């Protein structure tokens, strides 16, 4: 497998995960706001902070309004984190790796792309916005389902899984960080009254609610949700699961030692935390740490497989 192509399918999987996750997050967040009384301090702008996009948003939009924030997060091609940009990146990466993917993928990506572009002018309306975001989640699920069903479990698939799980872990940590920040702020006394709603929505934003309810058998509360999303061994959306999945995929790849050790180290660090002693409102330093570690893990993956130093290899021998 070409190194350059490995990088493309890895990013394809990341952007695909990002498209779906961002769409779901925005929809769940919108629905949560409808559950909360109007006087709450929590607002649309929290979403901008979640993506660390304060600066980019302020630069391009004068006023903080629901419409502007939604345009920025969904339809703005100049915002690299927007749904439309993520989808465009999926398409570009698929377009350049057609020779490795099942036939249907290209068509499914184009369909999503056409659907998204046709809806760009409608997103100011909540109702239409919800529909298009739901369609994007479904498109992501459809493409992922095709890949899962029809792709050989070869190195191409390994890179996709690694990309998917790294992106997912990153998103989960950002969402947890947001929740923690909401609860930690002084003015959030009000928020704490609605903590249950917050955690339920958070689980929903990660498609984790039903599995939580089934496996935890307890009321939704911060400490349990945190524990579930960080360390659950069988839920594929927990950060611990993602790290383990990445490490498992890496062992099928050539010379995996450095990135694999790194993924395991982050995994162990998580295991060492006594999560029941960390108040939910003080989780964000841990999440900060996680995000920076995941960033470094990405760097290590790129160095090992995408941009290796070919001169360092022994003189190549002709194969039989």
């Amino acid at each position, binding site marked *: *497998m*070409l*190194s*350059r*192509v*490995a990088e493309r399918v890895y990013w394809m999987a990341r952007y695909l995960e990002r498209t779906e996750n961002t769409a779901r997050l925005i929809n769940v967040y919108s629905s949560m706001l409808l559950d909360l009384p109007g006087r709450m301090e929590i607002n649309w702008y929290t979403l901008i902070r979640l993506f660390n996009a304060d600066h980019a948003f302020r630069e391009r939009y004068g006023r903080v309004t629901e419409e502007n924030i939604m345009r920025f997060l969904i339809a703005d091609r100049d915002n690299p984190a927007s749904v439309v940009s993520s989808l465009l990146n999926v398409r*570009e990466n698929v*377009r*350049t*790796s*057609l*020779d490795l*993917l099942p*036939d249907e993928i*290209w*068509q499914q*990506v*184009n*369909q999503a792309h*056409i659907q998204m572009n046709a809806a760009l002018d409608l997103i100011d309306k909540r109702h239409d916005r919800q529909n298009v975001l739901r369609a994007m989640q479904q498109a992501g699920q459809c493409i992922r389902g095709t890949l899962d069903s029809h792709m050989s479990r070869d*190195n191409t698939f390994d890179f996709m899984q690694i990309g998917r799980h790294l992106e997912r872990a990153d998103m989960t940590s950002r969402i947890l960080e947001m929740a923690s920040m909401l609860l930690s702020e002084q003015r959030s006394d009000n928020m704490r009254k609605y903590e249950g709603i917050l955690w339920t929505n958070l689980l929903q934003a990660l498609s984790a609610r039903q599995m939580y309810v089934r496996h935890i058998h307890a009321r939704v509360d911060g400490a349990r949700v945190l524990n579930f999303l960080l360390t659950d061994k069988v839920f594929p959306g927990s950060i611990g699961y993602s790290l383990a999945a990445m490490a498992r995929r890496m062992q099928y*790849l*050539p010379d995996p030692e450095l990135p694999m050790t790194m993924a395991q180290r982050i995994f162990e660090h998580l295991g060492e935390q006594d999560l029941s002693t960390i108040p939910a409102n003080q989780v964000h330093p841990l999440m900060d740490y996680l995000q920076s570690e995941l960033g470094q893990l990405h760097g290590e993956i790129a160095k090992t*497989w995408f941009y*290796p130093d*070919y001169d360092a*290899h022994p*003189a*190549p021998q*002709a*194969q039989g």
Partner: protein
Amino acid sequence: MKQEWNVYNPGTFYDELVAAQHQPRKASYKLVDFLRNLTRNRFSQCVRESEAVIREMGITFTVYSDAGNIDRAWPFDIIPRVIPGTEWDRTETGLKQRIRALNMFIQDVYNGGQAIKDGVIPEDVVMQSKGYREACVGITPPHGVWANICGSDLVRHSDGVMYVLEDNLRVPSGVAYMLENRNITKRVIPEIFNLLPVRVVRDYPSHLYEMLASLRPELEQPTIALLTPGIYNSAYFEHAFLAQQAGLVLLEGADLVVGKDDYVYMKTINGLERVDVIYRRIDDEFIDPEVFREDSILGIPGIMRAWKKGKVAIANAPGCGVADDKVIYAYVPDMIRYYLGEEPSLPNVPTWVCRRPEDREYVLDHLPELVVKPANESGGYGMLVGPHSTAEKVEEFRKLIQENPNNYIAQPTLSLSVTPTVTDKGIAPRHLDLRPFILSGKDIYVTPGGLTRVALVEGSLVVNSSQGGGSKDTWIVDEYGTEEYEEGEDE
């Protein structure tokens, strides 16, 4: 749609589907009958659906413009073009004969030049060909074949005869669109395939793979790659599509290195892996900065060395473009007689070679009625079409020919055939051509049909998609399945 088909009038042109008195030709009878029995609504729905399918299937081509590159949806016309099977069989025989002679000619050019010594083709004509590569002298590629993939352009004149207009031997494109056109038709009007025995095109990718593999007969499972200039190339869609369909590794120059042992390697996650056959979709000028253009960033330094030593096969072979030249084209019938001892079974368009004084005199006397072409341009650029041109333009070409007669040929202005095409004003006749693809390795394979390109502008003869051309699905229909319908039968 009956009314619309009844008033359809190709005028004095030869029409591919319809003979005189609005009667469909024998091979297209069932198709035309199917179409004219559709309601206007149903037909419009088919047209709209074909457009949606093209967007969904992501079939695009790139147009270069001042404002940057634009990805455009592939222009497709829903009404297929039909060629009777018996006619196609003769055409296929002619195309095979032609490519054999062309390959023998290229082999000769770089190995002794016997045809030049025997006076069949003038030496300076060969030497002035832009595709001639000194670096290829003395080389014999596998099976002695240089042009492994050829796309020849055929046109039909009002005499009903199919002529070869040119042979694209360097990096001919369009075959992916031929395949996709069939896929679109199958999706939009699937019913029609029950009515007619249409020859299958979809195994082209496996023939391509086999041909490429045959270039390294000593290897059991050669690694075969398609070398693309990258996503900004106008044919990138086709490169990715062919790699996907045929199972080739899609790569760019930067993915390859030539090792100290002169083998070609690709940069993989496992380190360097050998590549045995390269289907290049970049011009040979750019393929090796050590030998050709130093400024090429698309190429692979040292790859010519690897090729000459037989450590990698390259299709088409570098240097094969020597025969892709409009002056050399004029000599192809002579080549066929000289190398094969046969009469050409597919005619050339009659061609005056301006380097011959008597030809030149004729051309200069008849410029306003002729088509003048420079030796080495493609895509319809740099041409004079006398009858559709201005007096100034004619004079401009008169000067060009007088200054550099060796660079020009002239041909009569053909009256290209037409075929019913969907236009803003309903179904109307439009001019068209045909590009079949010929694969040559150990064996020769010709696509049944090829890519039909159609000039969408009324009266226009320019079929290039970069200049407003469209395309059609091309059907080779065996008439034995249609015999019960005699010409003259109506409704």
